[in-house]
């Protein structure tokens, strides 16, 4: 397993401060974290014999960037009221969250491979119990977003300048409560709230447009009063700069529509809803995936030997 030091293990910084590393440096670090994240999540889903690889892979770059450069939260500050919050509203992608958390030292890299097992805190969907850095329990689409809005309100009421980030799926846009939250957040001018949509064009069964079309998505969010950014969700510099623009948006919440590829990084999964979940990866499939993600034979052995 590639042992890389986490990007930040430093002291607590203020809500608006960003790590003082030069841009290219941090981009390289984030890319490395994203690579680790993809490998780790494939391994954990393989070991679990079930899970949702497609939507976990599509958001790896987003989460790597968020944890690598945007969130002012470190293992030492998980209980600090001043910390930024991240809510994984599309809870089924938690292997990505566990992986990036492991990368940054919130949990043990090896232990967090113990996914979906009885007694493990790394449940099939994120649960607050036993994982202090999981901000709320999710798994039922739509709810995490509403909870995140409540957090943004709570922080503002307590005059805490931290920000709240939440990641939603595009299929999740079909849940009505998402639009309740969108409307209410805009009404309350929650500019400390940022929703990122993992726009991978696919949901559980098929393409969004086959199941229930959500286009034009940006128009919807604008009509609901949000500042909207449309980006390539695998372009780390673009994600970074968009987070910055979102953080400086005043008077309304920000929505980042991140165009992504479901299964990104594992060629045989890319662009196929079949890999949404709950799928069981064979040893060969996991191996092929890790090869595609650049693992050495030794790393593959370490990841897959249970």
């Amino acid at each position, binding site marked *: 397993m590639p042992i890389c030091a986490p990007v930040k293990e430093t002291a607590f910084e203020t809500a608006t401060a960003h790590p003082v590393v030069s841009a290219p440096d941090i981009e390289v670090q984030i890319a490395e974290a994203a690579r680790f994240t993809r490998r780790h999540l494939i391994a954990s889903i393989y070991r679990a014999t079930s899970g949702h690889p497609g939507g976990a892979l599509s958001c790896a770059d987003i989460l790597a960037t968020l944890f690598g450069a945007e969130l002012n939260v470190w293992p030492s500050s998980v209980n600090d009221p001043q910390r930024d919050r991240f809510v994984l509203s599309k809870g089924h992608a938690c292997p990505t969250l566990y992986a990036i958390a492991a990368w940054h030292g919130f949990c043990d890299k090896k232990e967090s491979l113990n996914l979906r097992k009885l007694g493990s805190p790394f449940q099939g969907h994120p649960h607050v119990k036993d994982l202090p850095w999981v901000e709320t329990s999710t798994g039922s689409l739509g709810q995490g977003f509403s909870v995140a809005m409540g957090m943004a309100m709570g922080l503002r009421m*307590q005059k805490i300048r931290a920000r709240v980030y939440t990641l939603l799926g595009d299929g999740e846009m079909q849940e009505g409560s998402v639009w309740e939250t969108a409307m209410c957040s805009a009404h309350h001018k929650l500019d400390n709230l940022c929703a990122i949509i993992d726009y991978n064009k696919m949901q559980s069964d098929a393409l969004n447009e086959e199941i229930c079309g959500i286009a034009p998505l940006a128009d919807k969010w604008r009509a609901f009063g949000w500042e909207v950014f449309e980006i390539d969700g695998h372009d780390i510099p673009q994600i970074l700069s968009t987070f910055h623009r979102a953080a400086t948006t005043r008077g309304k919440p920000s929505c980042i529509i991140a165009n992504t590829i479901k299964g990104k990084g594992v060629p045989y999964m890319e662009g196929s809803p079949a890999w949404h979940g709950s799928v069981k990866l064979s040893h060969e499939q996991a191996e092929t995936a890790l090869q595609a993600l650049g693992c050495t034979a030794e790393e593959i052995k370490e990841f897959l030997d249970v």
Partner: protein
Amino acid sequence: MSENNAPALIGSSGDSLREAFGKELTRIAPEYPKLVVLDADVAGGTGVHHFRKAHPDKFIQCGIAEQNMVAAAAGLAATGMIPVVTGFACFLERAYEQARLSVGYARRNVKIVASHPGLDVGPDGGSAQALEDLAAFRAIPGMVVISPADPIEQALATRAILEYDGPVYMRTGRSGSVRLFNDDHVFEIGKGQIIRHGLDVTLVACGVEVARSLKAAELLAEEGIEARVVNMPTIKPIDEALLKRCVLETGCLVTAEDHNIYGGLGSAVAEAVTKNRPCPIEMIGLKDSFGTSGEPDELAEHFQITAPYIAEAARRAMARKEHLQ
């Protein structure tokens, strides 16, 4: 004309449970700096218009969006606030799954306070009469479920739920209510009380049915039957010890609630009784039917949950007890 032609809001009588709740919440708010109240465009009906007026900065208007409101409350609680979510009982059911996952499963310190429960909403009709809320919320693991009987108890319960750390569902009520208790009344989550002594049968009730059970006990007294009356404001966790004692001492029970007979107080009592010392139980409540328009008292009569029916149930329970012996 518009000024002095202000509309008369229905049921805003000072002795309703919602008024007791709203006023007490407003009064004690300064003691709970993290308290925040959420509303879904029905503040005029839940009693929290008092709170909004006194503490506008602690009042969050969510619009007609109960799902978002309940999950948002979980988020507020996650930041250390103590959110009190208010609404009409039937519409809060819209957020049942949010109450389950974001509140219950994450075990957030959220208080869901529901006015207009049971037949209480009266003329609005069956669509608005929540007769399944106690059952639904009781089934959520770890959820405390409370239904006070009078304004004094409602006020005490209001403080008690703020003191308690965990998810709570509490009923209030819009109708004018009978005052049953004095200022020295004690409310403790999980505890019922014997409010009338008797050894022939125990009437276990919550909410508006407590007053009706007391009346039933009077009717029975006229026949020489000594009915014990238990006020059971906490439906979950139910006071098993007290029930055990009542079964031992009176040998049969009647439960009375403004709710479907399936899943609410009656079931909680039946579960406890069959788990400990079983005895005959007769249940008063709506017999698996929806409500309809009418005044709450008329409806109570129509659906047979008033004192005479409770008394009749007591006679049946006693007859069954005899039969067993």
